[in-house]
């Protein structure tokens, strides 16, 4: 029941927030209701976690056999991890948007943000392939509208159309894969599928289904070459939404893919994912090098970071005995860290955009000194994203590298590529820091700029503190990452 509540509170509150926003137009009031809804959902997720800790199963309905209308949710540690990360980031984005967004349409904005969060929480808890697809679409559809939220401008419209068409083609291909699996087995239960599909092991049809899932969900996860929509969408969206999209939505796409692929069981597609991760990180980092638009650079960097996460997952799936646990641990920890550091970096970019109305890094030169608190926070995020100690991005990259070392052979090669890519990313992040924080102030900039509201600075500072905290005391994050990694490792038959 708690599993259902965690999603139902968010979607119910979405309706309420819309109505309140329509009637009062107060950003503080609507934001506050959204804030309460996220806390309520968080407490349900906490209850799910406690029940799991007691060793009991949490499902709605209690088992797959009792489902009606093909809706089945089952509580698990991976879902708890994803929900906790999504709710944390969403909470901060809600606070940030109370002042950042315009008063007009504020109800619509928060309603869609809550629905998107509900979709992400649901993806983690979905217990059968079709529920997984429906909640994945709930997340996608809200994100289409949020990307194109400012329809009076050209850029969000173009980005929105590209995103919608590519993403819908992808999810329909994945749904076709689900349909084929359904016609073989007559069930979509994630837990039952691996044993039912054993008779199809190694068949070309099953390979085709795997390809459909990888392409279909890979569009959402921005795996190169299905990443083309990402830089447009992530830079055109309102900054709070950019933080959500880069921080958790693409990762939720990856976790959807992971859950679907684990259900297909017997095929060993780990090496495919590792190969894709190599291309993804190289392409992301190399294109990010020559961006002059701050949000676009961060978006390409997200592609690269997805490559790191995919590398950990691929190693875990490809070599479950050697790296099942360590690879998954690195990948999931990097998802948590990336949500914090990239979310924060996008919120900083949004704050600069709010003050100066531009995302061009040359025009933003020296702005970090004008707003020292946000400037220092941006320094934290940029260094963490480039993987320098003592910030959090460094620690999870070490965990991923450890998985590569556990595998040996090809794994060692991947570790070298990971280090090389971190060095490339250091180039553009140091360049951005040099310009934005330490660069000279342009002469045509007005002497007095409008001050940043407290509610815009607060989430940025919170994320910056978390960036440092999780780097210095990584055990805090492991509390929630380790059970999820163990859960996935047990599903793929891996050792510790």
């Amino acid at each position, binding site marked *: 029941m708690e599993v259902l509540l965690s999603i139902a509170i968010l979607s119910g509150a979405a309706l309420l927030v819309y109505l309140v926003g329509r009637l009062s137009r107060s950003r503080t009031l609507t934001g506050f209701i959204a804030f309460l809804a996220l806390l309520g959902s968080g407490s349900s997720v906490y209850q799910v976690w406690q029940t799991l800790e007691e060793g009991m199963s949490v499902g709605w309905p209690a088992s797959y056999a009792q489902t*009606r*209308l*093909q809706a089945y949710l089952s509580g698990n540690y991976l879902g708890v991890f994803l929900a906790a990360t999504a709710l944390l980031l969403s909470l901060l984005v809600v606070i940030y948007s109370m002042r950042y967004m315009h008063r007009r349409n504020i109800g619509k904005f928060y309603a869609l943000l809550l629905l998107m969060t509900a979709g992400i929480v649901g993806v983690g808890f979905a217990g059968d392939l*079709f529920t997984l697809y*429906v909640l994945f*679409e709930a997340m996608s*559809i809200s994100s*289409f*509208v949020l990307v*194109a939220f400012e*329809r009076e401008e*050209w*850029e969000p*419209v*173009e*980005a*929105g*159309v*590209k995103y*919608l*068409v590519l993403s*819908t*083609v992808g999810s*329909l*291909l994945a*749904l*076709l894969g689900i*349909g*084929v699996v*359904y*016609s*073989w*087995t*007559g*069930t979509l239960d994630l837990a039952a599928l691996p044993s039912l599909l054993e008779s199809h092991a190694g068949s070309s049809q099953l390979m085709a289904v795997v390809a459909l899932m990888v392409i279909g969900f890979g569009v959402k996860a921005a795996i190169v070459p299905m990443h083309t929509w990402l*830089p*447009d969408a992530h830079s*055109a969206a309102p900054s709070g939404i950019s933080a959500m999209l880069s921080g958790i939505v693409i990762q939720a796409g990856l976790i959807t893919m992971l859950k679907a692929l684990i259900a297909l069981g017997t095929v060993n597609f780990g090496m495919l994912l590792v190969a894709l991760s190599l291309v993804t990180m190289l392409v992301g980092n190399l*294109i990010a090098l*020559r*961006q002059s*638009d701050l949000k*676009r650079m961060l978006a390409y960097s997200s592609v690269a970071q997805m490559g790191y996460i995919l590398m950990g997952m691929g190693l875990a799936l490809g070599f479950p005995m050697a790296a099942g646990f360590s690879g998954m641990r690195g990948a999931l920890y990097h998802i948590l860290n990336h949500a914090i550091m990239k979310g924060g970096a996008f919120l900083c970019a949004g704050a600069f955009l709010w003050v100066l109305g531009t995302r061009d890094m040359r025009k933003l030169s020296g702005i970090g000194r004008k707003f020292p608190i946000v400037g220092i926070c941006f320094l934290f995020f940029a260094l963490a994203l480039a993987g320098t100690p003592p910030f959090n991005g460094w620690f999870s990259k070490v965990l991923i590298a450890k998985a590569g070392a556990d595998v040996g052979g090809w794994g060692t090669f991947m570790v070298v590529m990971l280090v090389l890519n971190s060095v490339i990313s250091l180039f553009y992040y140091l360049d951005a820091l040099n310009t934005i924080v330490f660069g000279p102030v342009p002469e045509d900039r007005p002497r007095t700029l409008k001050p940043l509201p407290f509610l815009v600075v607060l989430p940025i500072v919170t994320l910056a503190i978390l960036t440092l905290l999780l780097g210095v005391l990584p055990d805090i994050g492991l509390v929630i990452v380790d059970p999820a990694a163990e859960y996935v490792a047990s599903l793929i038959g891996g050792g510790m």
Partner: protein
Amino acid sequence: MSGYAAGGVALVIIGLYATITRTNLLQIIIGLEIMARGVSLVFILGGAQSGTLAAAQAVVVTTILIEAVTVAIALSLVVAAYQHNKSLSITALRRLKG
């Protein structure tokens, strides 16, 4: 039975082909719809094949609902794009680069 399933897959391929090759935004959306119908057909046949037709119907009705929402949003974006550009061609959607 597998012949019908091949029909469903063929619909998906036709829809995909339309989505990739057409340059008119409305035709692209129609392509998406054709794909969705193909997928629905595969589900219905899968339900008939495995004797779980009721569940398959629940799935297809939900899919249709999701498609309706997606298309509504797609059309609203197309209207917005048309108002900016006075054109329905995707060649106008090439301003974002880098």
